[in-house]
């Protein structure tokens, strides 16, 4: 078992939690794991059929927008030095803006629709995808580009046959960060104002001092994050099968 150490740490952590929660005995502040699970089971239909699809929708739309616009911007920056010089510093600086503080403004702009949540998700997933893809596109070796030139290759040939495959591993690194952040983004978006979604549900339960029901959707959110991460890893390993052979 290659992940034995991680599993052990998780088991120890969860045991301490269970033990601590029982000793503490205030379920509205720190529910025990068993209480959370029981509450999850009671709420499973509401959580999985009513709120999960809403959050998933936000995540999927947000990620799709980030992937399309992020890679497009990365390609533009790598092919036009002028664009890179103008936009790269701005892109980095944009990460200094506390997005969580900015989020209420999206509610102001987009109202309580799905788009205010999507906007938060896009804002935090856009950066890792763009920067990683850009770094990947610029990581090509000059010697190989020159070799392509001696074959009479056009810029398009070099881009599709060299730059894109070179950038793919970097793109997937960006994706792994982005899918994890997308769950956070969607949840934050929902806190600020929503009628449905796991983040919204968790916050609503907080006002009712139902500790176990606050945690139950958080576990579902974590599972979504882990699931997305595994998906990206599987696609990565399929696409970059050659890496295992070199």
């Amino acid at each position, binding site marked *: 078992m290659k992940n034995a150490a991680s599993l052990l740490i998780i088991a120890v952590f969860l045991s301490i939690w269970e033990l601590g929660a029982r000793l503490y005995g205030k379920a509205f502040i720190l529910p025990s794991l068993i209480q959370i699970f029981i509450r999850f089971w009671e709420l499973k239909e509401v959580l999985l059929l009513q709120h999960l699809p809403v959050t998933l929708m936000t995540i999927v739309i947000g990620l799709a927008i980030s992937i399309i616009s992020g890679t497009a911007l990365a390609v533009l920056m790598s092919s036009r030095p002028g664009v890179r010089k103008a936009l790269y510093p701005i892109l980095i600086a944009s990460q200094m803006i506390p997005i969580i503080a900015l989020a209420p403004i999206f509610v102001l702009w987009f109202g309580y629709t799905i788009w205010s949540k999507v906007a938060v998700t896009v804002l935090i997933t856009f950066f890792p995808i763009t920067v990683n893809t850009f770094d990947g596109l610029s990581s090509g070796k000059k010697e*190989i580009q020159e070799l392509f030139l*001696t*074959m009479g290759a056009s810029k398009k*040939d070099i881009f599709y046959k060299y730059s894109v495959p070179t950038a793919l591993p970097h793109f997937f690194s960006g994706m792994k960060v982005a899918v994890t952040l997308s769950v956070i983004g969607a949840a934050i978006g929902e806190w600020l104002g929503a009628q449905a979604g796991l983040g919204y549900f968790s916050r609503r339960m907080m006002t009712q001092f139902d500790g176990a029901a606050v945690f139950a959707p958080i576990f579902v959110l974590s599972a979504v994050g882990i699931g997305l991460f595994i998906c990206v890893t599987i696609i990565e390993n399929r696409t970059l099968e050659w890496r295992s052979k*070199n």
Partner: protein
Amino acid sequence: MLAFDDVSFTYQSGNSILDHLSFNILPGEFISIIGVSGSGKSTIFRLVTGLDEPSEGTISLEGNQNSLRLGKVGYMPQQDLLLPWRTILENACLPLEVAGLDKKAAREQVQPLLEEFGLGGTEHNYPGELSGGMKQRVAFLRAVLSGNSLLLLDEPFSALDAITRLSMQEWLINQWEKRKSTVLFITHDVEEALFLSDRIFMLQNKPVTSFVEIEVPLERPRTRNDLHRAEMLDLKELLIRKLRSEVTP
């Protein structure tokens, strides 16, 4: 085949590398360019392939003056520069794909050549699974598949171990005789140059104004033993002495 006519090359920094250099290579010749590091070997290569343009003078390829040279010369770089995400077959197909052939046609054309180049059975392997010598064979095949009769080999065996290197030299000579291509071969190894070449151009002085040209007095086919003849040993001694005088300790 290839002619340099009064070619000068100066870097943007004002550093002059070539100064009115002229030479001529005939079809089917095997020419080595030998010189110490920084003597201008790679500048000549960049000029021949068309990656750089001369500051003065003209370079003509197969009689065509000043035509675009990119894509007209088969180039085999010092490191194999194989693409790790392409299999051996796909790597070899690259120049054909660049030339506009579709993947299937390219494969059909390359497949039979793999055997001929001693690469049979490796077509679905990735470069990382091959030894250094095998990778250089792929790189050479890729240069040949550019479809050009002038091949430029830039110290192709310098990263190989001594034994592999010797067998690769013999392999290269066989391939050259079979395909009747013209080879311009860069090396800093005197013995390698003597074994392989018809003529050797030695770079001296900086900027380079002319080559010291040596005709190798050996018939083909050659064997390693030919290198041990008295006249060859003298020639080798002479070349090494000249090269050494270029190195400033």
